[in-house]
C-alpha cells in the first residue's frame, strides 16, 4: 500500500482512507467466507458488494477527489472491489457445487429400470440375406434384374432348353395356373429372369436375380413349396468357365470371407452346358473338422465342404432363343437357394421357422444380416 500523499486535497474523505478501504474489504472477505449457503451468500453480496456497500460508496466518492488523488484512490478501491468480487465468485461456485451435489443426488433414479417403451421391429432374414448376396454381385458391377412370379412356360422352360416332355414340366413338380394347357406357371426357378434380361438389355449383360420361386414340395424341415433363389448371369464376348469360377470365388469371398476354396463337379441342367455343382470350403471350420480327432463341425457336418449351388456355361441354345449369336457371345450362370444359404450361414434348423412369421425368429436378425 502506498504512503499518504502530501499533495492530497485537504478535504479528505474518510471512506477513502486506506485503512477504511482495507477494513471494508476484509469484512467483506470474512463475510463471504462465512456464508454457509447460497441464500446467505446472496445477502453478503448485497451487503458488501451491493450498491450501498461501503466499497461501492467509496467508489462513488472518488469522483469528488482532486484529480491528483483520483488515480491512487481509484486504484486502491478497485483492487479491494476486485478482491471481493473474486471471492464472491469463488464462494458462489463452491456453494453451487455443494448444492448440486446435494440436490442431484436427491434426484437420482434407478437407471436399471426397464426402458423398453418403443416397439422395435426387424426385416425378414430371407429379405436381408438376399440383399446382401445381391450386393456382392452389385459390387462386381452386376445389376439386379427381376421378373414376374406368375410366369409363362416359354420363359420358365422353353427358352431355357427344357424339352416339351421334360419331367419338371408336370404337375408333379410345377404349379400350373388355370390348367396344364394355359402355358402359365408359378416360376420354378429364377432362371426365366435370365431370358427376360437377355431380351431386354443391351449386351454385354451382367445381372443378378434374386426372387421367390415355387415347386410342389410339401413343407418340411428342408423344403417348402414357396422359396427363394438367387442367380447371377454374365453374357459377354469370350467368357469361359474360368470366368464362371472367378465370379463364384468373388461371391464366396464377399459373402463368407476371403481365402475359402471352392470346388466344382460336373452336373446337368438343361440351360447350361457344361454344367456343374459348386461346393465351398466350410467357412466355420475351414475344412479342419475332417481331420482325425478334430472337433466336429455342425455347419458342414464335419465334411469340410458345403454345397453352394449349381452353375454352368449358358447353353448356346438359350442364347439362340434370345436372339444372341452363340458364336460371338458366351455366358455363365450361377444359382443358389436363399433359404438354404440362410440355414447353413446362420444355423437355422427348420424351414418352418422361416415361413411361419413368428416374431421371435425374425427379431434377432435386425435390419441387415
Amino acid at each position, binding site marked *: 500500500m502506498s504512503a499518504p500523499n502530501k499533495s492530497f486535497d485537504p478535504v479528505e474523505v474518510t471512506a477513502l482512507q486506506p485503512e477504511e478501504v482495507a477494513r471494508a474489504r476484509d469484512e467483506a472477505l470474512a463475510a463471504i467466507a462465512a456464508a454457509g449457503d447460497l441464500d446467505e451468500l446472496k445477502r453478503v453480496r448485497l451487503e458488501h458488494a451491493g450498491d450501498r456497500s461501503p466499497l461501492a460508496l467509496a467508489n462513488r466518492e472518488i469522483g469528488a477527489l482532486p484529480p491528483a488523488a483520483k488515480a491512487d484512490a481509484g486504484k486502491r478501491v478497485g483492487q479491494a472491489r476486485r478482491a471481493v468480487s473474486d471471492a464472491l465468485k469463488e464462494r458462489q461456485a463452491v456453494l453451487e457445487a455443494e448444492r448440486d451435489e446435494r440436490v442431484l443426488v436427491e434426484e437420482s433414479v434407478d437407471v436399471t429400470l426397464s426402458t423398453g417403451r418403443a416397439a422395435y421391429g426387424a426385416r425378414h432374414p430371407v429379405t436381408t440375406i438376399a440383399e446382401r448376396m445381391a450386393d456382392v454381385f452389385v459390387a462386381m458391377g452386376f445389376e439386379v434384374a427381376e421378373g414376374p412370379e*406368375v410366369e409363362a*412356360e416359354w420363359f420358365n422352360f422353353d427358352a431355357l432348353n427344357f424339352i416339351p416332355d421334360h419331367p419338371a414340366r408336370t404337375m408333379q413338380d410345377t404349379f400350373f395356373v*388355370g390348367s396344364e394347357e394355359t402355358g402359365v406357371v408359378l416360376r420354378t426357378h429364377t432362371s426365366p429372369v435370365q431370358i427376360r434380361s437377355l431380351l431386354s438389355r443391351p449386351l454385354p449383360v451382367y445381372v443378378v436375380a434374386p426372387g421367390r420361386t415355387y415347386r410342389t414340395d410339401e413343407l418340411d424341415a428342408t423344403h417348402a413349396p414357396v422359396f427363394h433363389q438367387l442367380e447371377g448371369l454374365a453374357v459377354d464376348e469370350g467368357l469361359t468357365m*474360368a470366368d464362371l469360377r472367378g465370379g463364384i470365388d468373388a461371391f464366396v469371398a464377399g459373402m463368407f470371407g476371403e481365402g475359402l476354396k471352392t470346388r466344382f463337379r*460336373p*452336373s*446337368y441342367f438343361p440351360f447350361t452346358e457344361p454344367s456343374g455343382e459348386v461346393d465351398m470350403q466350410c467357412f466355420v471350420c475351414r475344412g479342419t473338422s475332417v481331420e482325425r480327432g478334430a472337433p466336429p463341425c455342425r455347419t458342414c457336418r464335419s465334411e469340410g465342404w458345403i454345397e453352394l449351388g449349381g452353375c454352368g456355361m449358358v447353353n448356346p441354345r438359350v442364347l439362340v432363343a*434370345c436372339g444372341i449369336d452363340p458364336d460371338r457371345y458366351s455366358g455363365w450362370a450361377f444359382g443358389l437357394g436363399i433359404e438354404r444359404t440362410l440355414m447353413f450361414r446362420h444355423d437355422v434348423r427348420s424351414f418352418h421357422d422361416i415361413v411361419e412369421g413368428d416374431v*421371435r425368429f425374425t427379431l434377432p436378425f435386425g*435390419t441387415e444380416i
Partner: protein
Amino acid sequence: MRAPLSWLREYVELPAEVTGRELAERLIQAGLEVETVDQAGADLTGPLVVGEVLAIEELTGFKKPIRYCQVNVGQANGTGEPQNIVCGATNFAVGDHVAVILPGGVLPGGFEIGARKTYGHVSEGMICSVSELGIGEDHSGILVLPRDTPVGADATELFGLRDDVLDIAISPDRGYTLSIRGIAREAATACGVPFRDPADVELPSASGESYPASIADATACDRFVLREVRGFDTAAQTPVWMRVRLHRAGMRPVSLAVDVTNYLMLELGQPLHAFDRSKLNGPIVVRRGEPGETLETLDHVRRELHPEDILITDSSGPISMAGTMGGLATEIDEKSADMVIEAAHFDAIGTARMGRRHRLHSEAAYRFEREVDRELPLYASYRAVRMLAELGGAEVLPGVTHAQEPVTPVTVTMAADHPDRVAGITYGRATVVRRLEQVGCTVTGDDTLTATPPSWRPDLTDPNDLAEEVIRLEGYDKIPSRAPRAGAGLGLTPMQRLRRRVGRAMAGTGYVEVLTFPFTSERDADDLQLEPHESRRRALRLANPMSEDEPLLRTTLLPGMFKAAARNVGRGFGDVALFEMGPVFRPRTDAPDHAPRLRVDRGPTPEEIASVDAALPEQPMRVAAVLTGEREPSGWWGKGRVADWGDAIEAARTVAREAGVELTARADRHAPWHPGRCAALFAGETLVGHAGELHPRVTRAYGLPDRACAMEVDLDRIAGEMPDGVTGPEISTYPVATQDVALTVDAATAAADVESALRDGAGELLESIRLFDVYTGEQAGEGRKSLAYTLRFRAPDRTLTAEETTRMREAAVAAAADRTGAERRT
C-alpha cells in the same frame, strides 16, 4: 441306380485295394452324382460257412415248432464233428445245404453269435435266413443252398455278402449310367484302367426268323428283337449270387426267368420282357393305340389305352404297353416253359408320356424315358436266352426276329479348340480327340472335328456337349479362376432402393417383416367380407394346389398376414406389428386363355414377347401391415397406448414418406375395414390403398384380438408419384409467429378438409399447421365438433408484424369458413 462294387469289378480292372468310397470320389469328379456308399455286410464277421443238414429232431412241447439239427460244416469248426444247432424254421430238410454261422461270428446288424443253451439243448451257432444274412427281406425261412455248394466253404466270400454299394442319382441326360455297363465304363475312364463291355458277346450267325413281328409305327419304335427258348425248367431256382446282386441293386427276386431279365436290365441298361409263348396269338405288331382299346396289365388294372400309347399287339389286340408294363394275359407264370424274349428300342418321349398318362413308373420305363442304347437289343436278348439256357436248362431256338427302322446317324462338328474356349484352358487337339474317343465317339478332322457319338450317348448333339465331356474327364478342378470383369453397373434401380428403404423404415417403426405363402381361398374372400362381385374375388386358380383349401393366388396381402398375426397371438404375443412386402396377382380381364409357346430357334419379336406377357396377370408390389394390442407398451411408467386406426394410417404414411410422397386420407367404406374407421389413401389424386381398424367380423373370422388394425398400399402406385428430387430448402432465420385458432364444424366434416382449407387460406408464409385438440361435447354444440389448430408463420426475408400475422390467420379462417362452414369459437 445302386451299383455293387463287386459287379463293377467284373467289367473294370480296378486295382484290388480300391474301395467303394475311393471309386465314388473318382466318379463324382467325372460327373456322376454318387449319393452314398453303403458298406453292405461290413459288420459281418465269420465264421459263416456252408453246412449240410445231417439230421433233424423235431422238439415238442413248445409254442412253436423247434428243430434240433446236426449240421456238417466240414473242417470249418476245426473238429470235423457235426455242429448241434437249434432252429425255429422248418423249410429245410435233411441233406439240404445251408449257411451256418458258428459261435464267435457276428451277423449284419451287430448280432453276435455264441454257443448258448436254448429249448433244452446247447445250440452251437445258427442256421441263417435271407434277412439275417442281409441279402433280402424274407424272414420266414432258411436260405437253402444248391446241393453242389461245397460244405465248409466260406459263405461270405462265396456269395459276396460283403460289398460296397454305390448309390448314384442319375441326371436325365445320362441314361446310359442306369446300368452297370455305363457306370463301369465311367469308372474305367475315371481310373484309367481297361473296360470290358458286358454287351460285347459274339452273336451266332443268322439262322432265320424267330416269332414273327413287325413295326407299324416308326416314330414309336425303331428296333424290335425277339428270341425264343423252349423247355425252360420251371423248378429252376435263381442262384444265390444273382439274388444277392438283385437285392443289393434294390430289386426283389421273383422267379428265375424274371430275375434274369431284371439282372440283365441292371447290367446292360436294356429292359427285357418275357412273353409266355403259348399265350401269344399270331404275329406281333408294334403300333399306337386305337380307339376303345383296353389292356389289363400285370398289376391287375384294366387300362383304357390312348391313341398315342405305344403298344405291343398280337392278333388278339394289345398284349403289352411298350417298355412300361406287360399285359396280364401273356405274362409268364410258374408253368411257363416256352418263352419269347423281347428287347426293343422305343421312343423316349412316347414312353415317357405313356407312363405319365397312366401313372405307371417302372424300372423299364425309367430307362426308356432316359434313352436306351439303340444297339443293345440283339446282344441283350441273346444274353438273356443264353442265361435261361445255362441257369434254367432251356433250349435256345436258333432264329432271331429283328425288325428295324432306319435311323439317321448323328454327327457333331466342332472346332478342335472349342473345349479350350469353353473352359478357358488349352487342352490341345490330341487331348480333345483322346477324351472324345474314351467317351466312345468316332472322331475325324484336324482344326474342325467331326464326332460321331456312340449309340449309348444320344445326349451328345451340340459342340458344348462334346466340350463338357472333354472338360469333365480332364477334371473340373483344372479350371482356373479368373477375376470378374463386368463393367461398371448402375447399381440398384430407384424402385429397388425404395423397397429397401421401406423395409428399413417399417422395421425402424416397430414392424416385423413376414413372408407369407401367396395361397388363398374363397373362404378368405368371405372372411374379408368382400362383396359378391368385388374385384379382389377374381383370383387365379392353381390347377394343382398344395392344398384344396388354398387353391387361389392372393389378390391382397392381408389374409396371409392375418394368419401370421393370429399365430403370434396364439403363441402368447398379443402385441403384434407385422408387415409384408410382395406382389399380389390380379388377372387381366382381357387376357388370352393361354400364353403361346414361342419357337426357340431364334429370338422372339417384341410382338411375340407381348403376346406371351398378355397372358400373365398384373403383379403389383404391395406393402401391408397389421397391428394388434399395444403400439406402445405398458410398463412401470404407466399405461401404454393401444394400437388404433391412426397407427395403421401412419404405417402407410411411413411407406409413402420413403418415396417422398405425402398421403391424404379420405373416409371410405372398404372391406375388410370397419366401415366407420377406414381411410382411403391418396397420393395426389391416385388411390394407393386403405388403412384403418378392421371390421369386427374380420377380426373374429381370423381369431385376431378385437380392434386389430391394418393397412395395405400399392407400392408401384406410390412410386409412380415419386417426386424427381428434392430441392434444398432455403432456411429463414427470422422469428416464427404463432397463432392459435379454434373452429367448430359439423361433426361429419373431415378434419383433413378443414386443414387443407386453412392451409390454402393462410398463404405461402404458413410454415406448419398442427391440430392440437379435437373436442365434441356440449360446448362445441349439438352435432358439431371443435378443432383447435396452431398455425406457425415465418417469412424468408423479414420479421412478420403482428398485423401481418393476424391478417394471414383471418384469411385462413375465412377459407375454412367458406369451404367447410367452420365457425370461429369464442
